[in-house]
C-alpha cells in the first residue's frame, strides 16, 4: 500500500508546484493539503470534476484527469480510483514542466489507495453542536413506536400527543 500523504509531499517538491490538495468532490471539501492553502479552490475542483464525470462526455469511459490552464497557473485534477476523491494540484505556468507533473500524477493515481486521513478534533477546539435539539418526550414516543414495530404486534395504537 502506498502512503498517499507521502506521495503528495513528493509531488509538491516538483518544480513549479505550489499546492497539492486531496479533494472529496462529492462533498466539495479538501480532505488534506500540502503547500499553499488552496482549500478554497476545492469547490471549483468539485464542480468541474462533477461536470466531466457525471456529464455525457463520460459515457462509460473513465475520467483520468482535467487540466485547466489560466493566465498564471495550471490547475490539475487527477481523479483517483477511490470514489469521490481527486488530487488538485496548482502549478505556475512559467515554472517547471506540466508534462513532468502529469507523468508523476498518473503514477500516483495508478498506485494510490488512499485512506481518509485522521480528522480528529485538535485539542481545545469546541465540539460540533448538534444541528437541532430534540425534546425527551418526542424521543420516548419514537422509542415506544419502534418497540411496537419490533414485537410485530398488529394492533393499531393511536399516538397521544
Amino acid at each position: 500500500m502506498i502512503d498517499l500523504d507521502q506521495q503528495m509531499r513528493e509531488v509538491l517538491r516538483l518544480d513549479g508546484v505550489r499546492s497539492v490538495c486531496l479533494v472529496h468532490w462529492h462533498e466539495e471539501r479538501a480532505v488534506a493539503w500540502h503547500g499553499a492553502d488552496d482549500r478554497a479552490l476545492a469547490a471549483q475542483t468539485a464542480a468541474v470534476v462533477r461536470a466531466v464525470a457525471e456529464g455525457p462526455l463520460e459515457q462509460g469511459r473513465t475520467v483520468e484527469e482535467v487540466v485547466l490552464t489560466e493566465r498564471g497557473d495550471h490547475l490539475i485534477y487527477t481523479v483517483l480510483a477511490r470514489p469521490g476523491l481527486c488530487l488538485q494540484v496548482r502549478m505556475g505556468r512559467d515554472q517547471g514542466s506540466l508534462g513532468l507533473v502529469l507523468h508523476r500524477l498518473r503514477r500516483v493515481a495508478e498506485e494510490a489507495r488512499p485512506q481518509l486521513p485522521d480528522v480528529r478534533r485538535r485539542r481545545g477546539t469546541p465540539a460540533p453542536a448538534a444541528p437541532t435539539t430534540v425534546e425527551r418526550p418526542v424521543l420516548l414516543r419514537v422509542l415506544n413506536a419502534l418497540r411496537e414495530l419490533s414485537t410485530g404486534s398488529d394492533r393499531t395504537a393511536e399516538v397521544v400527543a
Partner: protein
Amino acid sequence: MANIDSGLKEMMEIEGAIGAAVVDYSSGMALGTLSSTKSLDLNVAAAGNTEVVRAKIRTTEQLGLNESIEDILITLSAQYHIIRPLTSRKGQGLFLYLAMDRTRGNLALARHRLKSIEEELDV
C-alpha cells in the same frame, strides 16, 4: 482570417483528431461540427463540455477570482478532449472543442495548433 468551416477543417487536420466543434456556451449549441467517426455525437459532447465551462466560470465568480481560462484538457481512458474559449471580441461566449484519439494524438502539438487556429478564426 478563416471562417468557421475552414477552422473546423484545420482542426480535423490535427493528428489524431476525431471530432471538432465551435460551441456557444450560453446555449450549449454547436455552431458547426466536423467529425470522422460515428461513435462520437458532437452535439451531445458540445452540451457536456458547456457544463464543464459553466462550472468553471460559475465557481470562479463565486470565489471572487479574476481568472480567465486559456484552455481545458480532459483525459478520458481512450480520448483527449481540448476546450479553448475564443478570445476575440466577436468570439465572446464561444469555445473551440477538439476530441482526439489518445493513442494517435499528440497533446502538446494539438494545444499549440489549436491556439493558432483560434487566433486566426473569424466568426
